[in-house]
């Protein structure tokens, strides 16, 4: 498994009955790397992230993470803690009434005491620039705030890798910039799915495209290029 944090070899995946989405994905995420992932809607970016944390099981291929092969559901408990997935829609991620409870949910699941969990949550909110949001009601936040709180809920678990599914989707320019700034300040290795090359370029160390169910380097594939130009 060498140095890579996450390694995929020949990963294939189809949704039942026969919607083939991934057709042999090879990929490795090295420590400190920030990989941008572009591609048209429906090409399988979300599916790929979900496979990495074991929410979906590949139909073929091998997956390794943090130095071990990962196959069974039990293998993925550790992966999910160490590779934090931020969902595309904040309403899927945030389910507690108040912001502080939601950010503390992960730490509490990791057997932190309520006092420690609250401290970690407060600290993480400060990190994403949301001090004073502790008692706000999650479903009444703006889109940009929801995205930052979602990010905080994951950061509170102190992951080694961040998997971000369209962190700028449906955000205005100011919110996008804020998300970008917060991400730039984080030390973790990342995979960032986005449609916006302008957002990815200053943030990432390389950009991959997705086409025909495979990852393509440099995103020079015509499909990826088209989606970027929008």
């Amino acid at each position, binding site marked *: 498994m060498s140095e890579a944090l996450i390694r995929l070899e020949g990963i294939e995946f189809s949704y039942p009955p026969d919607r083939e989405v991934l057709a042999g994905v090879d990929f490795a995420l090295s420590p400190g790397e920030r990989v941008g992932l572009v591609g048209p809607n429906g090409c399988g970016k979300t599916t790929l992230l979900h496979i990495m944390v074991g929410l979906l099981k590949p139909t073929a291929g091998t997956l390794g993470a943090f130095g071990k092969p990962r196959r069974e559901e039990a293998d993925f408990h550790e992966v999910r803690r160490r590779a934090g997935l931020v969902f595309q829609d904040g309403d899927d991620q945030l*389910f507690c*009434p108040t912001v502080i409870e939601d950010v503390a949910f992960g730490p509490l699941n990791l057997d932190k005491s*309520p006092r420690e969990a609250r401290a970690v949550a407060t600290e993480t909110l400060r990190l994403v620039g949301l001090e004073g949001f502790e008692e706000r009601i999650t479903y009444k936040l703006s889109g940009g705030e929801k995205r930052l709180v979602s990010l905080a809920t994951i950061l509170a678990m102190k992951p080694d890798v961040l998997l971000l599914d369209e962190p700028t989707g449906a955000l205005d320019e100011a919110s996008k910039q804020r998300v970008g700034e917060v991400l730039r300040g984080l030390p973790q290795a990342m995979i960032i799915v986005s449609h916006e090359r302008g957002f990815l370029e200053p943030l990432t160390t390389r950009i991959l495209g997705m086409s025909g169910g495979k990852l393509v380097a440099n995103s020079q594939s015509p499909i990826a290029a088209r989606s970027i130009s929008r």
Partner: protein
Amino acid sequence: MIIFGTLGRSFIGRIDPRVRVLAAVLFSIVVVLCRGYGVLATALAATVLLAVVARVGAGQALRRLTELNVFMLLVAVSLPLFIPGTPVFHIGALSWSSEGLWRAGLIAARANAIMIAMTALLATMEPAHLGFALSHLGCPDKLVHVLLFMVRYVEVVHVEYHRLRDAMRLRGFRPRFNRHTLRSLGYLTGMLLVRSLERGERIMQAMKCRGFRGRFYVLDPLKICGRDVGFAAASAALAAFLVWMEWQ
């Protein structure tokens, strides 16, 4: 559309949720079993007092009670028709008995007392605390989860419904009594169900990613203190008093 809300930190608001749930259950059982008018009047008076102490907003209370009493009105109109007794008045072959009217009054008094008590004791509670209290009192975890998620996602589904509904309106949809209307409303309902189901799945996945193992923890651990014991004793005394009145 918020079902629960904290109504400031009133005296009731600081009582342990478990004690409040137990008091509400005990009170409801006693009220359902009592049949004396004096007893029910006392119970009603006690709940109104409780609501004042819990600082339940007049608007919130009135809205709930109006909904309830519209239904009670139906009971008052229909029940006396089926309970034989001294007729009070009649229209043609339909006659309303005084026994039926009294019975309807009893039901209305019970329902109002329980509704006010629930509003004062439970609606003043954070949903997470209600869930925590219920699961500590032996309520199955599945039921508790259903309750908590309903509270959180009723709003999201509501918004989704309005989005779909508005999208239909923007394309000129007017409900009429025809097949097209029925089919469209069917699609709307179906789509809402499918979306809710998918959302449920995504929420579950997002929770798994954060280490969820089927148990909820709360940030503010609850401790029974003197105030809670006092409130529990007062509730038990009230229940005992009502039962004593009933047996007189």
